[in-house]
């Protein structure tokens, strides 16, 4: 299947999921119509975590092989992870305003996601401050791996130590899924579509970066930034 075809399928699936979220999913008990934000918020958060983990894995591969392709993949995944993390933060803030009365109240999960944004924002600042391509790839790979080591402390430890208004995860510690079946299937579909969207964007940006790198290599000056 070529990239254009998978783009069309992803867009159609996204339209289907949006339709299901607004016209098929019933209002939730207690939350009413507000529950629909969850179908954007959870997939965005899921994709951002997946992207950061992939970025770290490619960073590790770069450090072991020194092939620039892995650095390209790691940087692209981190960039997309940051974008989806921003979407999760905004959708979470909207949900917080509707349900708790304020966009931001430093709930442990808001703190966690804010620190994640800071970490990856800092990693982009680090990347732009290094001119040498190999040095940049090496140092930002190491920083990405250090960030992924810190991430469990943020994602799993801090929210469990402090009181949180944030609802329990869908799959909680008791391993019970507390959700209406229609909602659950829609959420699973939304997760799959968000993952597919990430894949399509990832392929697009990787190709674009590769073409730019080749063009810079062929140009009389050579080198240049990623």
């Amino acid at each position, binding site marked *: 299947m070529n990239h254009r075809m998978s783009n069309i399928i992803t867009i159609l699936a996204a339209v289907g999921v949006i339709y299901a979220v607004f016209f098929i999913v019933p209002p939730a008990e207690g939350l009413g119509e507000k529950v629909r934000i969850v179908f954007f918020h959870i997939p965005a958060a899921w994709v951002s975590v997946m992207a950061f983990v992939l970025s770290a894995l490619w960073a590790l591969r770069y450090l072991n092989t020194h092939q620039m392709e892995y650095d390209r993949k790691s940087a692209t995944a981190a960039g997309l992870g940051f974008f989806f993390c921003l979407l999760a933060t905004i959708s979470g803030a909207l949900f917080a305003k509707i349900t708790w009365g304020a966009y931001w109240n430093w709930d442990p999960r808001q703190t966690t996601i804010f620190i994640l944004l*800071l970490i990856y924002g*800092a*990693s982009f600042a680090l990347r732009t*401050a290094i001119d040498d391509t190999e040095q940049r790839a090496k140092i930002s790979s190491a*920083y990405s791996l250090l960030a992924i080591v810190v991430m469990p*402390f943020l994602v799993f430890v801090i929210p469990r*130590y402090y009181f949180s208004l944030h609802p329990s995860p869908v799959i909680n510690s008791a391993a019970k899924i507390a959700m209406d079946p229609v909602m659950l299937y829609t959420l699973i579909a939304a997760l799959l579509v968000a993952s597919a969207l990430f894949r399509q964007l990832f392929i697009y940006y990787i190709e674009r970066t590769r073409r730019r790198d080749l063009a810079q290599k062929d140009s009389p000056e050579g080198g240049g930034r990623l």
Partner: protein
Amino acid sequence: MHTKKLTWPNSAWAILYKDLLCEFRTRYALGTLTMFTLVTLSGISMTLAGAAISSSIAAMLLWIILFFCAMAGLARTFVYEQEAGTLFTLRLYANGQAVLAGKLLFNILLLQLVTALLIPLFLIFLNIEVHLWSQLVYVLFFGTVGVAAVATLTAFMVSCTNAKGSLFTVITFPLLLPQFLTAIAATGQILADTIPGWNECFFLAGYDATVIAAASLLFDYLWYD
């Protein structure tokens, strides 16, 4: 010429000794950190003008001073080597792990000295009484070890960049935040005469162990070309 190959621990001690000797001769880092501490502390104390503050705000101020003191001096360990042109020599003579260990020990020692200087002044200027000294020492020790561990690795990273000073704080702060928040919470409890829970104590020690292990694993990738 007789050359003697140093073992790993001896190399680390030699690097620590060299840094201590350089520091003793120039007194740059300790002097800067001490003055930074005094300036910040006097600024806070003068602004408060004797007004009472809650234990959680006092804890927050204490850790903010400690963090920015660390940021003012810890980057120097590697930036100085880079600027003086001795980083290459260090690469020739010592292995990565020994350099990391030596630099980390130096940074830990430096931060402990600054903390030992800051704490009595902080308690006097802000008129705070502490009854749980052993718990405070535990939190301060493990908190500053974490700061030193992350800062040693990020100091090496920024020594290879174009924007050394400003970037050091930018890339170190987010990585330290989980430990920073826990240390502030635990110190706040101690200043309010409440013994912090095991959660905080394990978190601080666990974070230190994790970042030291990660720094050790990653440093060789950065050290060797």
